[in-house]
C-alpha cells in the first residue's frame, strides 16, 4: 500500500490551534534577576553562605549544600564561552508557536563573578570563529523594549 493509502485508511485527529497559556511565578529571586535586566541592564547573582558558590540566574537553594541563599551580589555583563553549537535545524518554538529563527549560535557562558553558567544565544553562526575561553559580552534589547524575560538579552557577542 502506498503512503497515501495508509493515510486514507488510518485517520489522525489534529489537536487544532490549541492554546493553553500558563502563568508561572518567577519567585522573589527570579523576579529580582529579571527586573535588574529589564530596568538596569545588569546581572545579579546569589551567593551560598556555606560554599560561596555564586549562582546566575538566581535560585533560592544551593543544591549541593541544601542551604537557603539570600545574599545578592553583582555579576558582570561580560564573561567567557564554555561551549557552543550552531543550531541549524528548523523547529517550532513551543513558547511562541512560531519557527525559531535558524541558524543561531547557542552557548554556555560563564559571567565574570559567577560560578554557575548561563545558556543563551551567541551572535555568531560560524563554528570556526568561536572557541571555549573566548570573551563575550551581553547585548540587551533597547530600553523600553524590555519586558522582564531572558529574551531582554538579545544575545551575547564575541568581544
Amino acid at each position, binding site marked *: 500500500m502506498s503512503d497515501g493509502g*495508509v*493515510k486514507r485508511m*488510518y485517520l*489522525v485527529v489534529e*489537536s487544532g490551534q490549541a492554546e493553553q497559556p*500558563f502563568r*508561572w511565578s*518567577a519567585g522573589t529571586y*527570579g523576579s529580582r534577576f*529579571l527586573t535588574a535586566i529589564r530596568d538596569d541592564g545588569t546581572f545579579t547573582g546569589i551567593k551560598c553562605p556555606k560554599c560561596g*558558590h555564586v549562582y546566575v*540566574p538566581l*535560585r533560592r537553594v544551593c*543544591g*549541593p549544600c541544601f542551604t537557603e541563599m539570600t545574599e545578592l551580589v553583582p555579576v558582570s555583563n561580560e564573561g567567557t564561552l*564554555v*561551549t*557552543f*553549537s*550552531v*543550531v*541549524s*535545524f528548523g*523547529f*517550532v*518554538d*513551543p*513558547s511562541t508557536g512560531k519557527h*525559531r529563527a535558524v541558524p543561531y549560535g*547557542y*552557548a*554556555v557562558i560563564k559571567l565574570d563573578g559567577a*560560578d*554557575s*553558567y*548561563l*545558556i*543563551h*544565544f551567541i551572535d555568531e553562526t560560524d*563554528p570556526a570563529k568561536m*572557541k*571555549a575561553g573566548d570573551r563575550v559580552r551581553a547585548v540587551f534589547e533597547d530600553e523600553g523594549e524590555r519586558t522582564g*524575560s*531572558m*529574551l531582554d538579552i538579545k544575545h551575547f557577542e564575541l568581544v
Partner: protein
Amino acid sequence: MVGVGMTVQRSSRRDVTGVELINEAVRAALSDAAMTRKDIDAVVIGNMDHFEGINYVDTWSVDGSGALGKPVMKMTTGGTTGTTVAMGAYYHVASGMFDRVLAIGWEKNSESDTTGAIITAFDPFWDRPTFGGAVAGLALEATQYMAETGASEEDAAYVAVRDRKNALNNPYAHLRMELTIQAIMETPYLAWPVKLGDMCPRTDGACALVFASEDVADDFPNPPAWVRGLADRHLWAYTSDPYVNQKVKGGTWFPAMEMATRELYDRVGITDPLEQFDVAELYLPYSFAGLRYMESLGFCERGGGPELVRSGATDMGGKCPVNPSGGVLSSNAIGATGLLRVAEAALQMQGRAGDRQVQGASLALATGFGGCYWSDEIVLGSEMPDVGRG
C-alpha cells in the same frame, strides 16, 4: 526477568492508539512468560506525557496494560523513563510485596514535534527561550568533547555506523542500514557538530518486561535473567548545570554517570568493564555519546573513546559488543527506549537474542540517559547473584 515483549519499532504506527500499542507489548511479554493477566500482581508503566499531550497513562491504559483492578504506578523521568520503570518494577519485587510485576515503557513520538515537546520539559524562565531540544543540548557536549580530546566527527560517525549495522540483525529495529562513515559525514548539520546521521530517530514503539521474585523465578518456561545490581544519579537544575557540575566534581565529563558507575561497579565487583562485561546495551542518543560515555562508564581513559571504538572492541565479535540490537541510534520510542536496553540485555543473558546474540554472554550492562545528563545503570547476569539475597 522472566518475560520479554516488544513491538516492532516504526516511525509511525497510525494503525494503533497508545493503549493498543501498549497491549501489543504486554501480550507478547505475558505470552513469552506463559502467563495470563491474572498472574500479574502489579504494574509499573511509564512514558513522557508531553509527547502525546495525553496525561495519566496509568489510568487510561488499564484495559491494554493489564492493570485493571491491580496496583499500578506511573514513573516518568525523561529519557531515563524506561530504565526507571525497570528499576521501579525491581524495587516492587525486591521489597517482598509482589512476586510478578509487569514493567511497561512506550511512546508514540509520531504524535507531536519531538523538539518542541522536549523544550517544554525544561525551565520556562531560563532555558526555554533559547533551548533547541535534545539536538542542541547534546551538540554543546559534542563541541566540548572534540575541543578537549581532539576527537573528530568521523570518530563519532563510526558509532552511528556500528549501531545501525547491528540493527540489521534485529527484526524489531526502526533504522536498519549498512552505512559508511562518509555517508554519515555527508548528512546535513542539525546543530554543529551534530549531523542528521549522528542523531537517533523518533519512533513509535512499546516494550514490556516481567519481573519475578526468586521464589517463583523457576516457574516460567525461559531461564531468568538476573538483576545483579543497579544505581542511578540525577544532577541537574538547568541545562547549563552539567557543565558547572564538571568543575564541582573535579573536572569529569559526566558526573551523574560517573557517580552511578562507581557505586554500581563497587557493588557488583566490576574493576575492568571491558573485560568483565560480555555485552552492553547503552542509551547512546547520538553518536558522540558512544565515545564520551564509554569513558564515564570506565571502558577506557578520558579521551580514549575514539581509539576504543575504532579498535573494534565494541563491534559484534569484539571484547564487549555494544548495542547488538542497534541501540537508540536505530530506534527511539523515548519511554520504551531505556526499557528496551534492559530487555535486550535480558535476552542476551537468556541466550535468546537470535541473530544479535553474543555467544556465551553471562554479564551485561544496560543504561538509561535522560533529562539533562541523568544516568540509570543496571547490571544483569545469567546466574543468580549470591549477594543481597535473603
